[in-house]
């Protein structure tokens, strides 16, 4: 009986936590067999860098989704914040102090944009889907307006270093992605806030009865994702040394959400892991990479990608149940 119990316990922990990892492993093996270029260090680092932008946003999105919400505005928000970052950079001359200002302004702006979402959702009691659908349009439109539908461009030589550089051979965005992932994981698992996020997502009535300020917790998850958006915008804008108002970060929301969910977080809220989101983002990155590497008909790439997203989640479910 106890052995049975133990076994069933191990089994449960196993697939709830490592399901996404399992899906990743399968994909990795298939990819390695399918393309000789895949396991080159350089290619793997490329993949990691490519996923870090949406991955970082995904970290914040994990909190939002666990708390029972959703944020569709992150892509537009990235473009807006990134654009204003470049304006700030140009305004302050492009030196080290300018970059610090960019960081400050960006994070304040990201937090502010997230806070706006959060306030309407909590105070106005409007569904997150609809609020962020609205602000998605608003943020993108403001970006277009400020830049006259053109590009934000910097002339700084220093700024691109940030997004292009590497430390110990590993690109800066990847470092930041992983460091933030660890930080977010700690927040989710080892702080009151993290626990409240889960409680609110699981049952907000119970959370209220337990004296948790549900609205404040929800609000903070949107602020958090806003801050993550700012970091992503910083890395993105410094990588390209520019932000295109119409094109930058389009569909980031879909990739970020897909990463979270492939990572095993339930859309219905209440549970999920940051670790899973990282895996989810990498899975998406590998799929994109393989589609290019294998030279699949460009028109069919969407089919493959769609099937992989569904498949990755299906694999986990099957494993969890058995």
């Amino acid at each position, binding site marked *: 009986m106890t052995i049975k119990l133990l076994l069933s316990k191990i089994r449960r922990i196993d697939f709830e936590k490592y399901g996404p990892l399992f899906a990743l492993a399968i994909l990795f093996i298939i990819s390695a067999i399918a393309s000789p270029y895949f396991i080159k260090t350089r290619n793997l680092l490329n993949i990691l860098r490519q996923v870090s932008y949406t991955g970082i946003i995904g970290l914040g999105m994990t909190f939002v989704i666990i708390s029972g919400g959703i944020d569709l505005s992150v892509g537009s928000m990235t473009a807006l914040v990134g654009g204003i970052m470049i304006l700030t950079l140009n305004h302050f001359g492009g030196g080290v102090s300018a970059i610090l200002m960019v960081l400050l302004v960006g994070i304040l702006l990201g937090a502010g944009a997230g806070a706006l979402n959060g306030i309407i959702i909590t105070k106005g009691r409007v569904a997150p889907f609809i609020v962020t659908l609205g602000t998605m349009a608003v943020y993108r439109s403001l970006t277009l307006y400020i830049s006259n539908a053109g590009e934000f461009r910097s002339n700084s030589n220093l700024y691109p270093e940030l997004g292009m550089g590497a430390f110990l051979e590993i690109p800066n965005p990847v470092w930041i992605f992983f460091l933030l992932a660890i930080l977010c994981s700690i927040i989710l698992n080892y*702080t*009151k806030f993290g*626990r409240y996020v*889960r*409680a609110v997502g699981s049952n907000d009535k*119970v959370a*209220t*009865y*337990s*004296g948790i300020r549900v609205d404040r917790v929800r609000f903070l998850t949107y602020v958090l994702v806003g801050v993550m958006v700012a970091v992503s915008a910083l890395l993105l804008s410094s990588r390209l040394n520019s932000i295109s108002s119409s094109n930058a970060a389009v569909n980031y929301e879909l990739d970020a959400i897909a990463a979270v969910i492939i990572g095993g977080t339930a859309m219905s809220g209440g549970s999920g892991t940051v670790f899973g989101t990282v895996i989810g983002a990498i899975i998406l990155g590998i799929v994109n990479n393989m589609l290019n590497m294998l030279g699949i008909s460009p028109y069919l790439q969407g089919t493959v990608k769609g099937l992989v997203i569904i498949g990755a989640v299906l694999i986990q479910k099957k494993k969890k149940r058995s």
Partner: protein
Amino acid sequence: MDPVAEKEIPLLEVKGISKEFSGVRVLDRVSFSLSRGEIFGIIGENGAGKSTLIKIISGIYHPTEGSLLFEGKSVTVRDAETAHKMGINLIPQEFNLIPEMTVSENIFLGKELRNRWFLDKRAMIEKTRSLLEHLRSDIAADARIESLSVAQKQMVEFAKALASESKLLILDEPTTVLTRKEIDILFEIMRQAKQSGVAMIYISHKLKEVKEICDKVMVLRDGKLISIESSEHLGVHDMATKMVGRELSQIFPPKAKPQEDTVLQVRNLSVPNCLEGVSFDLKRGEILGFAGLVGAGRTELAETLIGIRKKSAGTILLNGKEVYVKNPTRAFASGLAYLSEDRQGSGILTAFGITENITLTSLKRYSRFLLKKKEEALKAQEYVRKFDIKAASLKTRLEFFSGGNQQKVSFAKSLDSDPQIILIDEPTRGIDVQAKHEMYRFIHSLVEGGLSCVLISSEMEEVIGMSNRVVVMKEGRITGILTGDQINEEEIMFYATGLKGVA
């Protein structure tokens, strides 16, 4: 402050509290006071306003008029958090646990222990263990709530309330899902708390227990205060009379006479980890009681019979013919019905009104191409009358109903499919004496009419008073089937604990 003077100020004074919900007054100028170390009982019929009153005290509702004094000072209890800070803790009537979280995470929800910024998980698990030990419960501190049985969840609720330093502990019908043994443990803990000066408000429909544990008893009827008396001078019978406002007759109707033919035969039914080789017969017009301790697997048995759980072995015969109950739809179509023990979780839709709830299972009968809404409403009205369901209208959402009224709707819902056999799981959980009485009579009349009934109950009296035969279960097996004189509390306990019968 002078300790003597402190003693004299009541801990809590409730002054003329009223509460209206969209114009309907459910509490009418209720006043009372409560001293440290006092256990204060509140009794009253379903919908009398008991839960509403204590929700006001613990900050979940705000009074329409009246005021609260806590430790002599006038206070506004803005929300649950404020109440916690003041030392008021509530164990609500309906469960308040996060199913995805572990026991210890739930117990410390909203009052986590920390060392600096981080959660002190180890300390919380340690404390949870000792709390559970104190409650003499063997629940694991890191078990997920969703894997616990109803009674185990209730234990966690206690632990949750005990974990915080309470000055005032409010228990809203805490013993409905507990066995006598657990109730004794609870009472012992309450007495300990009383010794250390904690005041308690205790709401229950089990009047004997109220008399046993409470110092004072307050009776509410239709939101009005009827009386506050010392429980020493108040007999159980008087309590019931005061609640209802008139004399009550004998609780249990005479036992029905089962007919000869067998309607349900269960043979060797097994479900992995739940049931093992369960076999029994049910005759037409019989009430077959199911007794057992918490976790005996009675609910699981019922769920297997209606096709919610998949059986791994065994056969089910209805009127001599084997049936395959693939899903509840099939089960209900072949004449079974089930009254769930988990009212809000799987019994009723709190967002729906009375009519839509009652006809949910039997909707086929009200539908040709389109729904015959008039027929539905008529039928619902009939049940409202028959069960005396108190509601503003047929369309009022059930979330605004008192627990007892919700249960009545749930019962009506199970009956509306005109079943041949009804599986009743904890039918009187959270129901007042009056309603209980009605419920018993009603079950009786159904059985007289040829219906057969499986009665699962943790209330020993109920099983004994109603059943023709009693099946006792332990850990997923049947340990004994008692008839006639064997049906008494002692004998049932012997089988339930494994002292008698096949283990």
